[in-house]
């Protein structure tokens, strides 16, 4: 239980079309992440799955059941919002139990389920408090707890960690990964954060302007992006794009090479250039250079390197790590 099928979902607000035909299949127990630039329709798609927005056309099926006319509470889903959205006048315990109470579950059973969820999230000491008396991280855990208590077939997360600071984000991320393993539930998760997407997902869905650009496992997207957009969106720093002409490659309009697939040397190499800026991150060194032949390049080197601005260096791409794209931005498949 917990599979999801979307068939040509379209959604328009007034005359403005936000979702332009989304087809997607999510299998039971999968962790699927939606990524995409701001305003591309991720939240709208999630709300459509939840039933909080009606799709203009298309069908949503949960567990092979058409849910187009089913109320959000009856779809067997739970949603965690970016802004927590806890009920301010209820205690943590009542916040977590409200959904079950509305569904007419007996008191004792609610208490038991709330206690279990609180145990999973280390929320026991706070059960009697109100949301105003909790820290941001605790509030987000309550919001996640409220979702768990409902024992949904499908969890929907809309950027649940973006209001937390970096350290807390890592902790909560681990917690969500652990929850996914122990609950074995299907989860759909929206994020802006590359690291979250790459580490949590079984499957990443890259959205752009209301369309799906590519669906695949994190490594598939990283190693075999289907088009320029995905190539540029996945991976940080961004992939270098070089005009095919400059490399004497007439069959490709654009050639892409990831920063981590460029080696630097002072002595000699393919592309001579001048260092513009260097970022030392400890584990990595990121070097920005302006090369004579292929223009601006970013290189990501493992470990510490003593390059400085205005140094003259030679960049060499790793053989076979280049991605070639045609005039429409689609990848040109090399015979494998």
């Amino acid at each position, binding site marked *: 239980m917990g599979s999801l099928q979307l068939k040509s979902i379209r959604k328009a607000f007034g005359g403005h079309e936000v979702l332009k035909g989304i087809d997607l299949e999510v299998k039971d127990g999968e962790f699927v992440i939606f990524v995409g630039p701001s305003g591309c329709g991720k939240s709208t798609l999630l709300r459509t799955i*939840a039933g909080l927005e009606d799709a203009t056309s298309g069908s949503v099926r949960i567990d092979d059941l058409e849910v187009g006319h089913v109320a959000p509470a*009856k779809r067997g889903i739970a949603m965690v919002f970016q802004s*927590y*959205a806890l009920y301010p006048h209820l205690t943590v315990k009542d916040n977590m139990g409200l*959904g079950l109470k509305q569904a007419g579950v007996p008191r004792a059973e609610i208490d038991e389920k709330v206690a279990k969820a609180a145990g999973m999230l280390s929320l026991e000491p706070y059960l009697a408090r109100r*949301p*105003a*008396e909790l820290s941001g991280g605790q509030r987000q855990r309550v919001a996640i707890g409220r979702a768990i208590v409902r024992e949904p077939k499908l969890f929907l997360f809309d950027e649940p960690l973006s209001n937390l600071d970096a350290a807390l984000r890592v902790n909560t991320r681990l917690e969500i990964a652990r929850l996914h393993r122990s609950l074995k539930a299907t989860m759909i998760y929206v994020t802006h954060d590359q690291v979250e997407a790459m580490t949590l997902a079984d499957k990443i869905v890259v959205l752009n302007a209301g369309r799906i650009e590519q669906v695949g496992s994190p490594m598939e997207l990283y190693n075999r992006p289907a088009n320029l957009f995905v190539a540029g969106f996945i991976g940080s720093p961004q992939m270098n794009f070089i005009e095919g002409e400059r490399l004497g490659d007439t069959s490709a309009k654009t050639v892409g090479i990831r920063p981590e697939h460029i080696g630097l040397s002072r002595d000699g190499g393919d592309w001579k250039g001048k260092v513009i800026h260097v970022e030392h991150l400890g584990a990595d060194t990121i070097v920005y250079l302006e090369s004579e032949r292929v223009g601006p390049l970013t290189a990501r080197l493992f470990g510490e390197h003593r390059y400085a601005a205005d140094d003259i260096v030679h960049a060499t791409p790793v053989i076979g790590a280049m991605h070639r794209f045609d005039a429409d931005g689609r990848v040109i498949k090399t015979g494998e």
Partner: protein
Amino acid sequence: MSKARTSLARTGAVHFALIAYTLVALFPVFLTIANSFKSRNAIFREPLAVPTPETFSLIGYETVLKQGDFIGYFQNSVIVTVVSIALVLLFGAMAAFALSEYRFRGNTLMGLYLALGIMIPIRLGTVAILQGMVATNLVNTLTALILVYTAQGLPLAVFILSEFMRTVSDDLKNAGRIDGLSEYAIFFRLVLPLVRPAMATVAVFTMIPIWNDLWFPLILAPAEPTKTITLGSQIFIGQFVTNWNAVLSALSLAIFPVLILYVIFSRQLIRGITAGAVK
């Protein structure tokens, strides 16, 4: 900006302005109450003086309580005001919720239409209202007044409350929907508590004109059993002789219910529980 250096002069100026305004605002109230405890001669001889043992007199209050059914007028005013406020708040909030929450054809137009009453005084329709009340047999009932005052208060209530309701987080309402709350439960249990300060503001704005109104009681309900206190006090104001003691005493008494209601509402204004709802 250094707070310590500028603060003394600035707080001084601010306090001076506020105190001056308070004095100006309270002066008529003080004058009314002080004079209501003086004898008739003292009122005219030294209107600004506080009552002294020589000039002290309760004659005004005695007249008021003896003449006419003053307690009854009082009751009428309170009933009309409280019921009207309750109806204005209930229907105003419901209309505001619909306007701010649901997307439907003609939403903006409907909002404008409902706000129209802010600009057009309801008194312009007095003749039609009176004809309507006569036709429905509501003349000389408190219901007539309540209906008119509810209509009079709604436009501003809808206008203010819909602005406030737009600020209530969508996520919170959506969380309620996923938890299975009906739209009514979302309205009453999630949204209303969060806009309580706005409701109190609307209540105060609605209350004062209703309590003070003379026009509609005079036209729609001038009969003895339905007189409101403002209308009831008019019997002491004659064309030739005015019983100032009684008028001032009646006015002093009329201040208290409004004061009590105001205190109740202003507490709601301060007590916000939104903190921690979102973010």
